[in-house]
């Protein structure tokens, strides 16, 4: 009895210390970023773990019109990519998942193949396309480019999900007089909520964080997105590197992602665990 109790306790200690190590490993850079952003001037070069809570870095960055503009651009790009890629992926998933037609699996493989190319390999070709479409130096170029990467993934996930929705529910809806559009809108979409949330969230994160395309396709400051804007933040002289401002900007940029993740966390988990339909 005693022995099993000590073993149980040891077991718990082991689990919690593992927890601690993982948490430290993943959260420390984040903490360091926030801590640094709250230090001012020279204090940033001292190794202190508890910051002095000075908000002048935030004040500086939030009064910077260029940064605010790039924040807005990022929001426009990310939300447009999420909305467009979900609408297109839902339409594609209905066709690929519920309708029997010749050439369905070649199309699925093609979609998958598209997402396999490394971004850098596509960069020059994509650049030409964007020039040709007249999208160069607009947020439209980024929306266009990001969809190339978010769509294949979204189509795959949603197709798999859509295919597994029970056939009899669709047939019941047909008997109830629903058109295909109404079936998708009123029956399938609500049932696919968790899948939509996770694919939408991933598309959002991907387009929010993307750097290379954003650097290549945008020329001027007023069209930039935040990852590039942060990288290009410079001090008042070429000898000053504004760590404090960069850390503050990074923190601000991370906040929307954290908020989204917290809001939808429950749905993502329930989407992963709840698969069964029959009660």
């Amino acid at each position, binding site marked *: 009895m005693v022995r099993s109790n000590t073993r149980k306790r040891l077991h718990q200690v082991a689990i919690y210390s593992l927890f601690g190590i993982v948490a430290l490993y993943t959260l420390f850079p984040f903490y360091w970023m926030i801590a640094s952003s709250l230090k001012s001037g020279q204090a940033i070069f001292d190794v202190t773990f508890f910051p002095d809570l000075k908000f002048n870095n935030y004040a500086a960055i939030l009064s910077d019109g260029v940064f605010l503009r790039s924040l807005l651009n990022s929001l426009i790009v990310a939300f447009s990519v999420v909305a467009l890629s979900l609408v297109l992926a839902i339409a594609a998933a209905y066709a690929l998942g519920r309708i029997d037609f010749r050439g369905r699996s070649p199309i699925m493989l093609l979609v998958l193949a598209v997402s396999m190319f490394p971004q850098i390999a596509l960069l020059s070709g994509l650049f030409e396309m964007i020039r040709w479409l007249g999208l160069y130096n607009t947020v439209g170029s980024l929306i266009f480019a990001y969809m190339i990467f978010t769509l294949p993934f979204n189509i795959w996930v949603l197709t798999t999900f859509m295919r597994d929705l*029970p056939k*009899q*529910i669709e047939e*019941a809806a047909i*008997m*109830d007089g629903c058109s295909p559009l109404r079936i998708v809108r009123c029956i399938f979409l609500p049932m696919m*909520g968790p899948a939509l949330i996770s694919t939408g969230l991933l598309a959002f994160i991907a387009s929010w964080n993307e750097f290379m395309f954003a650097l290549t396709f945008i020329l001027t400051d007023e069209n930039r997105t935040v990852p590039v804007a942060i990288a290009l933040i410079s001090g008042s002289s070429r000898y000053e590197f504004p760590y404090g401002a960069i850390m503050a900007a990074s923190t601000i940029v991370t906040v929307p992602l954290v908020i989204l993740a917290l809001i939808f966390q429950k749905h993502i988990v329930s989407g992963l665990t709840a698969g069964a339909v*029959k*009660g």
Partner: protein
Amino acid sequence: MSGIDLTDVVKRFGALTVIDKVNLRVGEGEFVVFVGPSGCGKSTLLRMIAGLEEISDGELQIGGKRMNETPPAERGIAMVFQSYALYPHMSVERNLGFALETARLAAGEIKERVSKVARFLKIEHLLHRRPAQLSGGQQQRVAIGRALVRSQKLFLFDEPLSNLDADLRMEMRVEIARIHRELKATTVYVTHDQLEAMTLADRIVVLKDGRIAQVGTPMELYERPASKFVASFIGAPRMNFLPGTLRRDTGASRLEVMGVTHTLDRIDYDGEISIGLRPEDLILGGGEVQIPAQVLLVEPLGGEALVHARVGDGQMLVMKVQGKPDLRPNADITVGWMRSKAHLFGADELALRAAEA
């Protein structure tokens, strides 16, 4: 007008023919049950009537109008599915009203019709729950309610009770019978359970390999099965079959079974046959024809008992006897039956009948 007429209806999947020239008339208000083993095409036939499956050949008429090309929702049909197929994200109330909502009825009328159906099926207290919060039987009631609310004249049931446990199945069977009695809607019901078929049907359609093996009232099928297949499918425990030889004579036939020969009215057949005997028609130690047997096992069921016996060289028989017979395994008994109760099937497995009958 809601009778169904099927004329030479065919369903092919590629080279495979799953429904082969089926002809059937379902009268208005009739309760017809399709039975058969899995893969016999009974569900496919139902789905063709519903419009969920295309008709490859032949004609389907509902209420005297050709319906082959009519979309499912316009055929005047309501359907109940095996898996209930309730919309999981909607309350029971919305599930019931969804078809009416799709048809753009006024909210007030939807509410009125939904609550009427809910009252009829005794599910009023469940209206605000989600399907996942209901038991299997309640879900099935909602599924039936969803069909009722459209007040169609034709109901299709696709194995509606096979996901329920035995108690609920009986309760819902009674409920479905009540619904049919009160609404008098034409009903086509698919099941693989011969008990459901016997108790619910006005007429039973037995299907085998995409063809109709026999159509008739439950008692017709029970008393005069047209083939060995129908005979073994209808009735539980299933019919026993013994091999025998039929010899044609002037004026009469002689039947030899398990070394016992007796005469019958003349049947125009000569050769090997099988003799079908229902467990409830076998008589322990009595009957016009008697053969020796050995007891293998007695299964008491309370008021009656099933006696498993061996006859001849390893043939098995099951008989149903009243009370609890005092029999031990290996005891020698005689098993007998009345000549009129024996069903004879020729080498082609079709029923043989006396010449004048």
